[in-house]
């Protein structure tokens, strides 16, 4: 990481991306990719059957989708870039250099998708009857196709991050795009989105139809049939996907699903997840056979269930990739695998442009030489640990060591020894990238941090300084660097 490091010490940097990205996936799958074909199908069915209430229901669903996708949906999509550029600029910057054209084409498709949804929505009440209505329905299916294509492109990048495949040797876009995870993940996400849209549509239908009219039952039966149709396809796609996850990543699944604290509860977790999926199936199945038997809260439970399952799947997908952010190319700390020999020989501080000055509160109780050491330790923390750990917030490095070494006095050598070999015991941790001296500086800093209980501010609060230990700075010190004003 050779950028000024943004750091959110309270919720942690991972949570920022996770919140934005998960929200985006839920909206993208449930209200766009899966929902647009369902809405177009409803509109088509309404015209064919001459039942205008199908048309009215489809329009109301579209109204919700239009409002949410063009606001929260669109902005969380941009937000993934915004947050990734803050949290792991090296990773997103590298991905952009590999996938530029994929992203560019995806953008063109996305522009088309947004134009189509605006036209589809605004012409609903104008293009009625005859050829105009047929054209409008065609527009709906066209919109559905473009929604799917955007997802089909992005899924390739997600697959690449887990396993770049042949790209590692030839660095070509096509090799990256056709990574081993791509098609299985697409085969899973497509029916997942379609099934999820059914659950969301059923939930909205209980608000948009009256309880005493027979149409509600007819609509719920049809929508749940849609969900049931895609459910086994989702399971089959999921199975294919699970078979291509690299072996090494499967070791991370229990921690990925349950966090370190609860990783022993794997069986219970699988039971709960399977039970949730079974509940979703049960609600849909009963709604198809006897729509009147399903109480309204059941649709709320189904919606929450599908949101939880999908959200949790995203967490697991993000976590199992560790210790890498780009499989076998770049570790989660933003340092390339190929940089390790140099950094472990010279130290991360010898090749880092920035330093993160101690705040007055941090430096206050320390003597001059202790400050020097704390400064080194803080810089090492920012470079090597801060992408995943905080000082005093979520997943804090202090709490991690506390669970290992308890409440007593911490020994710097003991901390350093553990950190040296932690990646053996915890396969999702990257190896420590620096030297033994840096490890001891980090240990001293952590001991100090534990005592002070202070949060660690990021570059966005306290700024940065030029790191005087950078070998490039040291060698240039005799000559004055050119300053752009």
């Amino acid at each position: 990481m050779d950028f000024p490091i943004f750091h959110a010490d309270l919720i942690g940097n991972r949570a920022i991306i996770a919140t934005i990205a998960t929200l985006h996936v839920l909206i993208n799958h449930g209200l766009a990719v899966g929902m647009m074909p369902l809405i177009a199908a409803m509109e088509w069915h309404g015209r064919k059957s001459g039942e205008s209430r199908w048309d009215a229901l489809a329009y109301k669903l579209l109204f919700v989708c239009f409002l949410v996708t063009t606001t929260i949906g669109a902005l969380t999509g941009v937000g993934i870039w915004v947050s990734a550029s803050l949290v792991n600029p090296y990773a997103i910057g590298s991905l952009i250099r590999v996938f530029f054209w994929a992203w560019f084409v995806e953008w063109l498709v996305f522009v088309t998708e947004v134009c189509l949804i605006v036209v589809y929505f605004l012409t609903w009440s104008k293009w009625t009857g005859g050829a105009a209505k047929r054209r409008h329905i065609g527009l709906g299916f066209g919109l559905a196709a473009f929604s799917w294509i955007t997802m089909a492109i992005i899924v390739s990048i997600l697959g690449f991050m887990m396993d770049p495949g042949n790209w590692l040797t030839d660095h070509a876009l096509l090799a990256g795009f056709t990574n081993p995870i791509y098609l299985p993940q697409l085969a899973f996400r497509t029916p997942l989105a379609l099934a999820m849209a059914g659950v969301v549509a059923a939930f909205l239908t209980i608000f948009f139809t009256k309880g005493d009219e027979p149409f509600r039952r007819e609509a719920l039966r049809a929508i749940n049939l849609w969900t049931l149709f895609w459910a086994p396809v989702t399971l089959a796609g999921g199975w294919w996907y699970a078979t291509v996850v690299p072996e090494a990543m499967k070791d991370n699944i229990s921690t990925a699903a349950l966090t370190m604290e609860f990783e022993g509860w794997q069986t219970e977790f699988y039971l709960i997840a399977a039970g949730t999926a079974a509940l979703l199936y049960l609600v849909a199945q009963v709604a198809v056979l006897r729509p009147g038997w399903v109480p309204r809260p059941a649709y709320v439970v189904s919606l929450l269930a599908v949101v939880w399952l999908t959200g949790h799947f995203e967490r697991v997908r993000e976590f199992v990739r560790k210790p890498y952010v780009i499989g076998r190319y770049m570790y989660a700390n933003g340092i390339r695998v190929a940089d390790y020999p140099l950094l472990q020989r010279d130290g991360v501080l010898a090749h880092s442009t920035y330093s993160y000055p101690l705040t007055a509160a941090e430096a206050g109780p320390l003597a001059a030489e202790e400050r020097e050491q704390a400064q080194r330790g803080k810089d090492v923390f920012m470079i090597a640990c801060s992408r995943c750990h905080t000082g005093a917030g979520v997943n804090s490095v202090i709490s991690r060591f506390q669970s290992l070494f308890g409440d007593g006095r911490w020994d710097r050598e003991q901390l350093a020894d553990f950190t040296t070999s932690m990646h053996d015991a915890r396969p999702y941790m990257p190896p420590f990238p620096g030297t033994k001296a840096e490890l001891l500086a980090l240990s001293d800093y952590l001991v100090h941090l534990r005592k002070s209980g202070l949060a660690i501010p990021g570059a966005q609060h306290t700024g940065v300084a030029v790191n005087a230990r950078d070998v490039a700075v040291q060698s240039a010190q005799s000559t004055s660097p050119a300053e752009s004003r």
Partner: protein
Amino acid sequence: MMTPIPKDIPLALPVPEPLLVALLVGLFLLHILFVNLMVGGTLLTVFYQVKGLRDPRYDRLAHAIADTVTVNKSLAVVLGIGPLLAINTLYTVYFYSANALTGDMWLGIVPIVVIAFLLTYLHKFRWDAMAAHRRIHMAIAAAAAGLFLFIPLIFLTSINLMLFPARWTEVQGFLSAMLLANVLPRYLHFLLACLAVTGLFIVWLFRRAGAERLGAVGIERGELLRTGYRWALFPSLAQFVAGPLVLLSLPEAGVINRVVVTILIGAVMAFPAMLLMLAEVRSPPDRIGRRFWPVVVLLSITVLCMASGRHLYREASLAQHRDLVKAKTESYLQAARKANVQTPK
């Protein structure tokens, strides 16, 4: 204070640099056109809704403008992604560094824009339903306008900071970066452009409007066009003051002859556009609107010159630093390769 020289990402640019530059400059103009319409449209909506308290015709004009804002805002955001991709690729080191140093606000863009968009929908779709609560309805538009006024400031601050690596070690958070010399003049320049572009948009909107559309507003076509031209003309005239202010507040390092000449050509092209607009404002109702496309073409040339001038400044300002970054990246990669060979696997 020393200027930081960071390392670049060690992967080749995926696209020839001139193509990236063309994409960045061209796509950004497309994006900013709709941003201007979004911000300017919201401001004029509020203005005419207030005016509509006394004369209901203006309330209907406000409604007609508000109807376009929700479409323009969708185009503004999707068309922003293309240039965002281009700037991410072309200026990775500079852009991401500036983003990080203004990180809280940079991240704040996401929720702030979402809220602003939701407010514009609420305002548009509840227009008739809130007829009995006009002031609350107007407050919603005003809140959206307030947010729309703030968001460009975040972008401007970051995009300005990225040009000056020597300042990266001086700033501490968004506010200190916002107060760097050039940001506020550029912001003024931008706001005037929002009003001017929206003024021309009003002319376009009603130039060929049928009787039904004109009847819905209740203002004569000639009067509507004159109104649009006034919004375009006076802020554009003010740009002759704001523009030089931007140029003068720029650090000199990048102000080379090429930059000044390009910008001057743009300013010269704007003169006849001003005269044409003045003539339009003075035209009788049956003749107004005939010079619309010449005005648009001339001002488009002006805008293209300004955007090119801005890019030339950016290049000149960063040229030396980019060479240093390149040299540092190369020597680092060489050292990393050597260490890989020396380290037993």
